[in-house]
């Protein structure tokens, strides 16, 4: 039997382990360079495309002499953005207020209802179908009705709430149900002991609340955050849709209202400026939600863990 103990330090010049180390170093370096390159491409390519599109747009408008009330040049849109900033900024704040108020209410309602549904089958069976009905009915079709029965601001807020509510409810409900079965059994073993004074039904209720707090809640967090990412964007869409529906009623002042108003007045540069602000808002909301989700999950959830190579 020939058992050989490897000692790379013994003869570094000729030992095979040395060349292995060398090969390891290069193969270790290569993917890292590759990753950096990928990152540069991922940022650089869309920016380059953006620059090309804006430049072509600008050139086309100038060369063909397109009037600004048909298609304004990007430079003109920027000028309008700066000139109309006080007005546009006020509208932006109004839309943001609606969006975040709607989203907050949707979080409270969605999470609250999901918790109720998880605690009681009876509540789940009676309420869930209506939540679905609320979701599948197009919000554009409900908005005019809401505008009749509710004050305008409340109606707009309600629209933002309706569309943002469902993804949070359905995701959180799913999350609350996706706890490891064995963990729940473990919980039965260690946590189900009811206080002596409590009747059986109260004991089982207390056990459910405890399971909710210790197991189902944390397990539902990634699902909830996924719903939140969708709901953030939808709350903005709901707010805009309702503002547009309310637009003809006149009293609104959000960004969507500015768009309608600009269209009536053929102030197309301002329409574009408002549109750009809306897009940027949507992107920022999405990025903020993603960052928030990453922050909460980075230590433990698969979705937030970068691939180790």
């Amino acid at each position, binding site marked *: 039997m020939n058992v050989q103990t490897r000692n790379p330090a013994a003869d570094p010049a000729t030992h095979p382990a040395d060349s292995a180390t060398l090969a390891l170093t290069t193969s270790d370096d290569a993917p890292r360079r590759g990753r950096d390159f990928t990152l540069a491409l991922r940022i650089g390519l869309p920016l380059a495309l953006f620059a090309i599109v804006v430049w072509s747009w600008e050139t086309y408008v100038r060369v063909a002499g397109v009037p600004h009330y048909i298609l304004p040049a990007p430079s003109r849109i920027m000028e309008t953005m700066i000139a109309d900033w006080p007005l546009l900024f006020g509208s932006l704040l109004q839309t943001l207020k609606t969006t975040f108020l709607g989203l907050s209410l949707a979080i409270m309602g969605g999470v609250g209802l999901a918790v109720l549904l998880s605690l009681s089958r009876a509540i789940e069976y009676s309420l869930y179908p209506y939540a679905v009905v609320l979701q599948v009915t197009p919000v554009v079709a409900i908005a005019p009705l809401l505008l009749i029965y509710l004050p305008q601001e409340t109606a707009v807020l309600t629209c933002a709430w309706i569309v943002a509510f469902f993804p949070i409810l359905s995701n959180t409900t799913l999350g609350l149900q996706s706890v*490891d079965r064995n963990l729940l*059994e473990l919980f039965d*073993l*260690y946590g189900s002991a009811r206080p002596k004074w409590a009747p059986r039904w109260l004991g089982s209720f207390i056990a459910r609340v405890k399971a909710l707090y*210790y*197991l189902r809640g944390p397990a539902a967090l990634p699902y909830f955050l996924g719903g939140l990412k969708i709901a953030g964007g939808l709350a903005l869409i709901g707010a805009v849709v309702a503002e547009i529906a309310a637009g003809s009623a006149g009293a609104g002042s959000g960004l969507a209202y500015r768009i309608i108003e600009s269209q009536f007045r053929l102030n197309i540069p301002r329409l574009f400026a408002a549109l750009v602000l809306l897009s940027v808002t949507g992107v920022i909301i999405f990025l903020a939600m993603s960052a928030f989700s990453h922050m909460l999950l980075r230590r433990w*959830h698969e979705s937030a*863990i970068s691939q180790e190579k």
Partner: protein
Amino acid sequence: MTAQTAPSPASTPVARASSDSGSAPRSGAPLVALEGIGKVFQNGTVALSGLDLSIREGEFVSLLGPSGCGKSTALRILAGLIPASRGAIGWAGGGDAEAHQRDIGFVFQEPTLMPWANVADNVYLPLRLRGVSRRAASQAIDSCLSLVGLEQFAKSYPRELSGGMKMRVSIARALSLRPRLLLMDEPFAALDEITRFKLNDDILRLQEEFGCTIVFVTHSVFESVYLSSRIVVMAARPGRIIAEIDVDAPRPRDRDFRTTPAYGDYCRAASEALHGAMGYDEHL
């Protein structure tokens, strides 16, 4: 060799409090007895029929059998996780089963850790559910983690650990309430052999230090012989006990035990019993 349910007056009195941290008694006072346990699942499957098994204080009992023989079911009934269809569980000292089942530690086949909590918080869970404050529990957590050699990993998250380490966290969690009875449901089945050997030694050492009674479900003949003071061989359809083998080899055991002739003899005896359990002799 058969299950004895009545406390024999001749047996040496063993203090039931876990004050004796020395070597575990080989055959102490009866701790718990399953009497005529039957289990029929809702879909009509007869998982167990007429199971009689008595566990004595300080024993290491392995339930060995082919899959489907109801060994996990028996363990779950013992833990109170599922009710038996018939039969009774009698605990030493009487009283209702629920109270005694609070003294049980349970280890599943999977580590079953909470991925959102670090190692220390995972071990803390049973104590937390009993209303022990984090401050009061910290010493118990530390000692459980050092029992399984993971004291440096208290702040790690489960995903950062290997399969064997996760299983050791799971064992530490089961020990955190200082249970009198530790139930293990094929805990090492999903691990590689090298890790399993290591954990087998760990679990033997833990029992020496801890002095708890262990019921261990496995489908490995070698594992059951290496660990147990008694092997209970079960057969399927319906689940029942067909043989009990007392492994009288001295404890504490270490790796050298695997090379002794006695080890080989016990393995052969257990294998033969298992073949009987699988109905091989019917085909001959």
